[in-house]
C-alpha cells in the first residue's frame, strides 16, 4: 500500500483559510481585550473578511481542483464567496452598535460569525459531498449558538434550541443521503457521481440530499423553523442567516444537483417545481398576515427561496446565472431591510411591529426612503436589483419551457407587493406612535445601509457586469 500526498493547493482555499485564521485570532483576542476594546475585534473581523475577499478575487478564472478533487475553484464559487463575504461585512458593520445596545458585545460573537462564514465559503467551494457536509456543519453550529446569543431572552433561547434540533435532524437526512449515494456509486465526488449509472438507490439518496438542502434554505414543507428562529434570534444574526446561509446552501444545492446528479435532477424537476410553487405561495401568503416585521421578513425569505428554486428547476446556464445574480441582489436588499430595522432600534427595544414605523418619514426621511427602496427591491420593482433578479429568473424559466412556473412566480410577486408596502404605508401615511423618541442612526450602521443602497441601485441600473460575472462559471 502506498500513500500519496494529496495535492495541497492552499491558494484555492485561501479565502476559507483567511477567514478561519481571523476567527481564531478574534477568539484569542477575546481573552486579552477589556470590554471597552471589543469593538476592535469587530474591526479585526472586517479586515479578515476583506482580505478573504481579495484572495477570492485572485481566484477568478483559476479553474482548478485540489485536495484530490475535494475542492474546486471556479467562477461560480468565487461569485458566491464574494456574495457571502459582502453579506458578512454588512452584518458586522450593523453589529457594532447593536451588540453594545443589547449587551452581547463579545469577541465570541464575531468569532462565531467568522466560523460560520468559514463553513459557508467551504460549502460553495466543495466538490465532494463529504466536504459539503463538513461545511454544512461548520456553518450551522456557530449559528445555533448565535441564534441563542441573547442568553437572558427566552425567545432567543427558544430560537437557538429550535434551530439546533431541526438543524440536527436535517443533517441526519443529509448524511443518510450521502451514505445512499455512496452506496449506489462508490464515490462521494460530485464529478464521479455524475459519471456513474443511475439507480433507485441513487434516486432515493438524491431525494434525501434534497431534504437536507430544503431544510437549510427553508423550502416548504421544511420551513417550519424559520419564522420562530428569525423572530427570536438577535436581529443582526437573523439578517445574516437570511442571506448568507441561503447563498451558501443554494450554492452547494446547485452544484450537487447540476454537477453530480444532472440526470436524476431531471426526475426531481417536477417535484422541485411543485416545491417552488408551495414555497413561494406559502411564504407570501403567510407574510401577508404578519404584524411583526421580523416574522414578515422571515416568511418573505421563504418566498424568495421559492423564486430561486425556479432558477434551479429551469437549469441550464441561464438558470444558474439567474440564481447567482438573484442571491447577490437578495443579499444586499435583505441586509438593507434588516439594517433599517436595526438602525431604528432604541437601546434594547426594537421597532418590531409594522405600526411602530408610523410617521418615520417625517422624523427620518432618509432612512424611510432607504427602507422604501429596499422594500420595493424585494417586491421586484425596477429600477432596483430585485427586479433584474426576478426578470432573469422568470426569463430562464420561460426559456426552458417552464412558463407556467414563471406565471405562478409573477403572481406571487404581485401578492408580495402588498405586505412589502405596509411598512412604507406606515412610515409615510401614519402618525408617529407614542413612546418612541426620534431615532438616531449610528455612523457604522449608516455606512452599511448606504453600501447596501448603492449595491441595490447599481445592480438595478447597471446589471450587465454582475450578470456577466454570474454567467457560466460552474465547473464540472
Amino acid at each position: 500500500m502506498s500513500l500519496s500526498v494529496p495535492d495541497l493547493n492552499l491558494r484555492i482555499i485561501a479565502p476559507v483559510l483567511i477567514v478561519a485564521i481571523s476567527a481564531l485570532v478574534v477568539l484569542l483576542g477575546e481573552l486579552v481585550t477589556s470590554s471597552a476594546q471589543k469593538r476592535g475585534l469587530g474591526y479585526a473581523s472586517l479586515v479578515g473578511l476583506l482580505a478573504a475577499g481579495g484572495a477570492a478575487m485572485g481566484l477568478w478564472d483559476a479553474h482548478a481542483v485540489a485536495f484530490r478533487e475535494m475542492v474546486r475553484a471556479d467562477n461560480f464559487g468565487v461569485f458566491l464567496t464574494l456574495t457571502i463575504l459582502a453579506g458578512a461585512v454588512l452584518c458586522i458593520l450593523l453589529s457594532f452598535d447593536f451588540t453594545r445596545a443589547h449587551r452581547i458585545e463579545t469577541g465570541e460573537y464575531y468569532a462565531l460569525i467568522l466560523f460560520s462564514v468559514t463553513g459557508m465559503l467551504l460549502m460553495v467551494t466543495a466538490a465532494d459531498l463529504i466536504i459539503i457536509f463538513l461545511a454544512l456543519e461548520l456553518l450551522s453550529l456557530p449559528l445555533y449558538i448565535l441564534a441563542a446569543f441573547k442568553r437572558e431572552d427566552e425567545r432567543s433561547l427558544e430560537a437557538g434550541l429550535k434551530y439546533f434540533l431541526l438543524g440536527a435532524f436535517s443533517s441526519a437526512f443529509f448524511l443518510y443521503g450521502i451514505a445512499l449515494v455512496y452506496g449506489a456509486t462508490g464515490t462521494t465526488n460530485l464529478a464521479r457521481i455524475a459519471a456513474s449509472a443511475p439507480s433507485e438507490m441513487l434516486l432515493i439518496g438524491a431525494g434525501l440530499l434534497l431534504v437536507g438542502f430544503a431544510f437549510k434554505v427553508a423550502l416548504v414543507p421544511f420551513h417550519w423553523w424559520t419564522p420562530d428562529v428569525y423572530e427570536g434570534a438577535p436581529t443582526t444574526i437573523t439578517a445574516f442567516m437570511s442571506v448568507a446561509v441561503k447563498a451558501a446552501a443554494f450554492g452547494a444545492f446547485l452544484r450537487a444537483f447540476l454537477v453530480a446528479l444532472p440526470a436524476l435532477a431531471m426526475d426531481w424537476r417536477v417535484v422541485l417545481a411543485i416545491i417552488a410553487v408551495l414555497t413561494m405561495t406559502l411564504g407570501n401568503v403567510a407574510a401577508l398576515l404578519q404584524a411583526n416585521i421580523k416574522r414578515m421578513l422571515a416568511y418573505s425569505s421563504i418566498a424568495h427561496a421559492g423564486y430561486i428554486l425556479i432558477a434551479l428547476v429551469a437549469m441550464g446556464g441561464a438558470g444558474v446565472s439567474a440564481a447567482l445574480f438573484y442571491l447577490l441582489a437578495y443579499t444586499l436588499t435583505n441586509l438593507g431591510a434588516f439594517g433599517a430595522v436595526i438602525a431604528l432600534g432604541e437601546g434594547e427595544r426594537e421597532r418590531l411591529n409594522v405600526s411602530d414605523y408610523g410617521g418615520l418619514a417625517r422624523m427620518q426621511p432618509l432612512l424611510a426612503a432607504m427602507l422604501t427602496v429596499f422594500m420595493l427591491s424585494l417586491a421586484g420593482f425596477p429600477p432596483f436589483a430585485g427586479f433584474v433578479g426576478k426578470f432573469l429568473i422568470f426569463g430562464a424559466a420561460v426559456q426552458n419551457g417552464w412558463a407556467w412556473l414563471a406565471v405562478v412566480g409573477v403572481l406571487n410577486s404581485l401578492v408580495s407587493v402588498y405586505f412589502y408596502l405596509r411598512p412604507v404605508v406606515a412610515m409615510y401615511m401614519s402618525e408617529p406612535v407614542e413612546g418612541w423618541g426620534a431615532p438616531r442612526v449610528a455612523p457604522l450602521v449608516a455606512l452599511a445601509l448606504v453600501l447596501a443602497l448603492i449595491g441595490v441601485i447599481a445592480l438595478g441600473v447597471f446589471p450587465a457586469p454582475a450578470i456577466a460575472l454570474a454567467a457560466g462559471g460552474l465547473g464540472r
Partner: protein
Amino acid sequence: MVPFALSLLVLLPLVGAAIVLLIPKGQKSDSLIKWFAVVWSVIPLLLASYLWFVLFDPNASKMQFEEAYLWISSINVRYHVGVDGLSMPLVWLTTLLTVLGLFYSSYVIHERAREFFFMFLLLETGMIGVFVSLDFFLFYVFWELGLVPMYFLIAIWGHAEDRPQYSAIKFFLYTLVGSVLMLLAIIAMYINTSTATTPGTFDLIELATKRPFANDFVFASLAFWGIFLAFAIKVPLFPFHTWLPDAHTAAPTAGSVILAGILLKLGTYGFVRVLVPIFPQVFQANVLPIAILATISIVYGALVAMAQTDFKRLIAYSSVNHMGYVILGVAAAVAIGGANLTDRAIALNGAMLQMFNHGVITGALFFIVGILYERAHTRDLKSFGGLGAKTPVYGAILLTASFASLGLPGLAGFISEFMVFRGAFATLPLIATICVLGIVFGAAMMLWKVIQNVLLGVFDEKRWAEQEKHGVKLYDMTRFEVITLAPLLFLMVLIGVYPSVILNTLNTISVAILGQIVK
C-alpha cells in the same frame, strides 16, 4: 440639433426631484421648493416645445432624435429612445400638464410640500420615459417607475374622506396585475425572437418587423392578451375600469389631472405602439371583442357618469367614455374588411387626436372640479346652482371645457370624435352606430348634470352664507387659477378651429403604421 435631447428630457425632472430633496430645511424652504419645482418644470416644457415645433419633421415616418446604447449586454437590452408623430405630442402634453399641475399645486398644497414636488417630478420622468422608450424592457422599467409616485400622491395627499389609501393600493395592484403579465409576454417575445446564435430582442421597432410568434397563433394570442390586459387596465377599458373612479376621486387635484391627462394615455399609447404593429394578425382576429368592450365603455361609461352625484366621480366616469373612443378608433383602423387605407388612417388619426384632446379637456375639467372643491369643500352636484351668475369667469371656463368634452363643433373634442366615427363607419358600421349613443349620453351628462346643476338654477344665498361659518367661501377664479387653465382652453379652441397643427404629424405615423399591416 440638441444632443441627447430625449435623454435630457427624461433626466431633467429626475435631477429636479433630487434638487428638491437637497433644498435645506428652513422657514422658507417650502416656498423655495415650490418656486424651484415650478420653474424647473418649465425647462422640459421649453425643450419639448423646441423639439416638436422647431426640430421635429412632421412628414417623416421614422423615429426622430433617436439614441441607442447597449445597456444589459447579456440579454441584449438597449437604452433605445426616440419619438415619432405618435409620441411627440404626448411627450409635449406631459411636460405641459406637469408645469400646470405643479403651478396649481404650489398654491394649494400646504402639507409635506417637499415630498409632493419630489414625487411629481419623479412621475414626470416615468411618464416621459414610457413615451420615448423604444426598447420594451426600458418601457417596462419606466412603466413601473411611474406607478410608485402616483401611488404616494393619491395615498398621502388624497382627500381623507375618500379613502385615499384604499384607492391608492387598488390603483397600484390593478396596474401591477396587468404589468406582470406584460412582463411575461416581454420575456416570451424575447425568447421567441432569439436563435441559437443570436440573442433575442426587446426592441419595439425590431419586434414590429420580426413579429414574434408569427407562425404560432396560440402563443401569439397569449402574449397579445397578456400585454392587452396591462394596457386595457390602464386605459381603462370596461370591465377593468373599477379602479379609476376611486383613484380619481381620492387623488389631489393635480394628481387627477396627471392621471386622466397622461397616465390613461399610457394604455392607449401602448395599443398603438405595441399591439398594432407587433401583433397585427391577432389584433385583427380579435377586433370584434375589443370593439365591443370599447362600445360598452363608451355607452356604459356615459350612463354611469350620468348617474353620479359627485362632480369628480362624474368626470372620472366620463373618462371611461372618452377613452372608449380611442380604443374604438384603433379597432376600426385595423379591422378586417374592404375599407381603404384612408378610412383606416382617419380612424387612427381620430384615436390619436382623441388621446391628446382628452388629456387637454379632462385635465382642464379636473382642475375646474378642484377649484370648486377648494371653495365649497364639497363636490356634491346638488349643493351648487346659480354659480354662472355669481362667478362668471368660472362659469365661462366650465362651459367651454364642458362643451369641448361633449363634442361641440369648433372645440377640440368634436374633431377627434368625428374622425373616430368617420373611420369606424367604414369598417365597423354596426358598432359605430351603437357608439353614437355614447355621444348622446355624453352630451346629456355634461348639459344636464354639470351645467344645469352647477351653473344654472337659483343661487341659494342663505345656504352659502350659513356655510361660511365652516370655512366655505365662494369667490370667482383668482389669477393663478385662470393662468393654470388658460393654456388648456387655448388648445381646445386651437385644435377645434385649426386641427391641422397636429393632424399632419399624426397622419404621417398613422399611414406608416397601417401601411405595414394592411395589404
